[in-house]
């Protein structure tokens, strides 16, 4: 049984996630392939999907144009594991608001029961690296790379908090959805990607 993992390749940090999944598969010794996906047809064949960092407004709008957004929603709804990073976390959410601009019209998948504050830590000059702990999934220390990062301001009852930084929620899990406000693909640490690959493997009968 070969795992088929895709990285949504509309815009943003696609290649780095592709490489992190490749590394994870080989380190775990799991038989699988990684591909960069754009179309509804490609997405319908996946066992797991990463929605990478980038600009959430743009990724949302362009995935709407070619029908990818609808397929992603159906697939996640039917149990496919998904890993949303930064913009990906925003896209998965039910509700998003910008810290400065306020309410924004943007397409969201409306699956992850959280409220997001976009650009929560400020602008690029305030972007930072800091050590994060994701104890609930067994990762005690991880170098969190936060780039104009969002945070989670409210969580629904089925949402598990995986990590906080200075009182702000920066990683969550809800069933087959895992999300981080920071960028594991910009580090050489594959533990989060490995954790996701394992999740995809466990989801297969």
């Amino acid at each position: 049984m070969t795992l088929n993992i895709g990285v949504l390749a509309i815009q943003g940090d696609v290649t780095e996630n592709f490489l992190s999944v490749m590394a994870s598969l080989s380190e775990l010794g799991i038989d699988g392939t990684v591909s960069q996906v754009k179309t509804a047809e490609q997405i319908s064949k996946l066992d797991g999907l990463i929605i990478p960092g980038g600009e959430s407004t743009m990724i949302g709008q362009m995935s709407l144009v070619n029908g990818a957004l609808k397929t992603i929603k159906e697939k996640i709804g039917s149990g496919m594991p998904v890993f949303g990073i930064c913009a990906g976390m925003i896209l998965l959410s039910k509700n998003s608001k910008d810290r400065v601009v306020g309410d924004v019209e943007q397409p969201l998948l409306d699956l992850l029961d959280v409220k997001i504050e976009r650009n929560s830590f400020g602008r690029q000059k305030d972007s930072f690296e800091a050590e994060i702990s994701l104890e609930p999934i067994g990762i005690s220390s991880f170098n969190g790379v936060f780039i104009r990062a969002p945070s989670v301001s409210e969580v629904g009852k089925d949402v598990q908090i995986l990590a906080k930084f200075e009182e702000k929620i920066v990683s969550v899990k809800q069933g087959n959805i895992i999300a981080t406000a920071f960028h594991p693909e910009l580090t050489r640490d594959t533990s989060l990607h490995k954790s996701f690959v394992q999740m995809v493997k466990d989801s297969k009968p």
Partner: protein
Amino acid sequence: MIPLSGDIPNSKGEIKEANEMTSISRGTSTLKRGFAHMLKNGVVMDVTTVEQALIAEEAGAVSVMVLDKLPSDVRKAGGVARTASIRIIQEIMDNVTIPVMAKCRIGHVYEANVLAETNVDMIDESEVLTPADEYHHIWKWDYTTPFVNGARSLGEALRRVEEGAAMIRTKGEPGTGNVAEAITHIKKVNDELRSIKSIYDSGDKQDLVKMARELKVSYSLVEETAKIGRLPVVNFAAGGIATPADAAYLMSLGCDGIFVGSGIFKAEDAKERARAVVLATTFWEEPDKVKEAQKMIDERQSILGLDVKDLELKMQERGGTV
């Protein structure tokens, strides 16, 4: 993963803060180059007003670049072109959720300081403005804010990376609506990359040292670049892009994304065109989508364009030799 060749440890732009609970770093190469990574496969649009910035955001731009005048107007106006009004930059920052960039003059340290203090997300040390220093670019390692620089060749690109640029845009000829120069320069950079890669693969260190001398950059940066066979930072195309087909063609040549200057807001169908250029950039590999994008624009409404041969001022030459 981002290769960190040419990284200067403990540069002034890198800030470490620690309290009893946590320690954090700002302005690291990972954060600066990582910011550019988030723009990949996207379009950055030149804007001069809040209204244009909102059109750009709605069209799917990944960032806006604030100028006082669009490049074609800079060309017409003549005189000295400087950084945009801080008031307008601030107003745009308060109204869009996407990152905001602004241009400073080549070598103008204090225009850069002012932009960094204004908290723009990226500074473009740009040849579109009148250079302030003929001999030096800004030492960009001194800044927490990331920089993007233009380049016409591999040597020029690597010299800027060595000075701390977190992103490169291959130069075209700004404000002309003529994509020819942008095409020439990305092809030249690609050729030069192929050539140093083949030297690296052959294991001939002496030849690689010779290349470093020719390119006027450190050996370690040339070696790292030759090893990966591409620029060690994100590289966008810029200058003269006017239509969806222009953007898609440059993407096919291996650019990571597109800067559009006068091409959109000097056209009469700016709103539709902005959307169309984004579509063509995103789906450049799909001929039917590029055709759909091209169909959205009306060629009679494109910027008229200039033949580069007839130009008195070639902005691309600015800052190129140092």
